[in-house]
């Protein structure tokens, strides 16, 4: 038992902090720190800045740009990025399809896609969920039928986050309708400029355009864009969704949001009730951060720590709770959600209601919190 970081880890953290706070565009960082939306170009620029320094995909194999860091170092990298307001490398690229191609892909696929994926030259979208396949993902119905060397894809994906920016989409498709539902799924990579791919925006309760429907009508996909084995898609999906031990909970970003809330609250911080809510949230975030550290620091070789399953569940609850408090502090000023920049209301207060509403998604995506409870009760508690 040892609380302090080793000198090497402390030096590592200092190096990360230094890079993130001095080498990433201040305009981008301020946009994040103030809770405003980033443009596509800003997200790309930030990731390229990181990638040039070898900091975009440290968890990938070394030959494809990874770093041989410990889990603790990856945790520190992730936390320092959030603290500095540096956008996290695009999850679809860095955390999802990149590791999948590196693990399951052919040499040709690796060479074709991995460098461009790390550098965000290709913007990937995720094509998993469907209208009738949410938490029950294996029920998906989008089909791919072999025709010569190609696959012909028909169906609909939904909740495709930032699909409007997507160059390519990695999809789970049904390639064998005759077998048990998990056994007939494959992963296909699809160029979104292919004829028959249509992206339709979904307007959300916060007024934003963040997610989309993606429709596939007789979309022809070359056979060499199948990832892994035919009908092996479910294994890949489980790898992709269960791959992560670091960064499961948005600790750093939520801490930063709470710190910003305190700074914005002004005289409201004199209200004992507000102080108590802030103090309780700070304490809950500390417990979450400590649990994240316990998970990454307990050993660097073994299987995931069982407590990792609580991180997503609790992390999203706290992310939501901070946004609720910000909304309550904004009060009537929050009504000016879609007022222009000449509004006399402060920006953080105007953004508070859309942010609160938007973050309701956090306990739904990435395996809803009910799915997390199911995982805990079944696999950890044996119920």
């Amino acid at each position, binding site marked *: *038992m*040892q*609380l*302090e*970081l*080793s000198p090497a*880890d402390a030096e590592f953290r200092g190096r990360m902090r230094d890079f993130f706070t001095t080498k990433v565009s201040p305009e981008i960082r301020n946009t994040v720190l103030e809770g405003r939306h980033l443009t596509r170009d800003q997200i790309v620029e930030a990731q390229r800045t990181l990638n040039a320094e070898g900091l975009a995909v440290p968890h990938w194999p070394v030959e494809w740009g990874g770093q041989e860091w410990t889990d*603790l170092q990856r945790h520190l990298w992730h936390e320092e990025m959030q603290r500095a307001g540096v956008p996290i490398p695009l999850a679809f690229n860095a955390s999802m399809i990149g590791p999948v191609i590196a693990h399951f892909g052919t040499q040709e696929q690796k060479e074709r896609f991995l460098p461009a994926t790390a550098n965000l030259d290709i913007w990937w979208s995720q094509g998993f969920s469907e209208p009738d396949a949410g938490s029950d993902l294996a029920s998906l119905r989008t089909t791919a039928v072999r025709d010569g060397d190609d696959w012909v894809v028909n169906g609909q994906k939904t909740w495709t986050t930032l699909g409007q920016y997507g160059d390519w989409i990695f999809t789970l498709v049904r390639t064998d309708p005759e077998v048990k539902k998990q056994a007939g799924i494959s992963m296909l990579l699809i160029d979104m400029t292919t004829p028959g791919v249509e992206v339709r925006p979904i307007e959300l309760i916060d007024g934003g355009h963040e997610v989309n429907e993606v429709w596939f009508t007789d979309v022809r996909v070359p056979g060499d864009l199948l990832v892994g084995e035919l009908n092996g898609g479910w294994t890949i999906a489980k790898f992709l969704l269960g791959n992560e031990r670091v960064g499961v909970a948005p600790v750093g970003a939520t*801490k*930063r949001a*709470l*710190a910003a809330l*305190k*700074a914005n609250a002004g005289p409201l*911080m004199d209200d*004992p009730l507000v*102080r*108590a809510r*802030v*103090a*309780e949230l*700070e*304490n*809950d*975030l*500390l*417990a*979450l*951060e*400590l*649990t994240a*550290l*316990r998970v990454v*620091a*307990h*050993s660097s070789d073994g299987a995931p720590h069982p*407590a990792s399953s*609580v991180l997503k*569940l*609790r992390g999203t609850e706290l992310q939501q709770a901070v946004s609720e408090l910000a909304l309550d502090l904004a009060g009537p000023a929050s009504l000016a959600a879609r007022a222009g920049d000449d509004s006399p209301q402060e920006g953080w207060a105007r953004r508070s209601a859309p942010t609160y509403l938007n973050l309701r998604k956090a306990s739904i995506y990435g395996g809803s919190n*009910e799915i*997390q*409870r*199911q995982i*805990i*009760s*079944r696999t*950890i*508690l*044996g*119920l």
Partner: protein
Amino acid sequence: MDFTYDDEQQALREAVRGLLATAYADHDARRRTVADDPGFDRALWGRLAEMGVLGLPFSETDGGVRAGPVEIGIVCQELGRVLAPEPYLASVVHAGGLVAAVGTAEQKADLLGRLSAGEIVLAAADTSPGGRWASRADGVRASVSDGSWTLDGVADPVMGGASADHLVVTAALPDGGTGVFVVDAFAASVTGYVAADLTRAASVRFEASAATPLGEPGRDLSPSIATISDLTRILGANQALGVMQSQVRATTDYLTSRKQFGVTLNTFQALTFRAADMYVSLELAHSTVDWATMTIAGGDREVVADAADRVGLQVSRAARHIGEEAIQLHGGIGMTAEYAVGVGTAHLTVLEQWLGNAGHHLTRLAARVTEHEMVDAV
């Protein structure tokens, strides 16, 4: 940074667990022990002394072993696991801690030597009726005449006080401040009673009771007293963690074995999801307990005081959640004294109200909330 126990610490846990299992193999044994005075197992206390557990916090020159806070925390977790009624936290950690912090070399060698050997039991008297975690018995006043000190007033609750040979009393000094005094139990009027978890506490009345000042007579010892209270809170959180771990385990065992409507209870998602939430509370509390225990080694009073508040709040919340749900998910049997799970909730309740409840810790944290931008774990 390392959140794992080393081999020696694991061995200590196994040894303590093994010894406790000889006395409290099942809840019936605990029930029998607390049914009669002194409310704990003196033979077990002696074996804990032989194993070096009673002297764990103290230096070798005082008859102890000088182990670290993590080791003491392990002992407290194991005591909590079986709801052991032995007054380890009250006598060794709190009262012994006060002697170690403020006593002279002779006082420490005498009192801590005998405490470590299991020859005496100490109890800390630091609360008067109406007191709320101020770490001083406001109702007890010290007087000095011709170099002889006496105490007057009432201390209550005094945890473990009913069977203590000596009381370690925090009392108001004549010229202001708070001193620490040792009083022989026979020099005070000690009325024992049974606390809500069936362990023993006492009401102690001092009437011109002869008292020996610990350390330099007449000196205000408030900072040291507060620090020892904070250490006791952190180690009490370790004890509560042990209780909660047992409760979560007992609840999951029960859900997989108890049948209603012809099926085991884990068939019902309304119940398994609540068990999952108990596990979440447990793991968050566990992380905070480990962290708070590790802050002690740094030796910074303010850091330890902050950690005591933070772990106090986290564990109080978890104890309410887990303790209440453990009973509810068990149903009627959770209400019975013959079943450990509900008695565990009683024990958590006593620990919380003895050491400081969530409201107390939250009030203190809220008072400091604008003094920092954010709270960092490392």
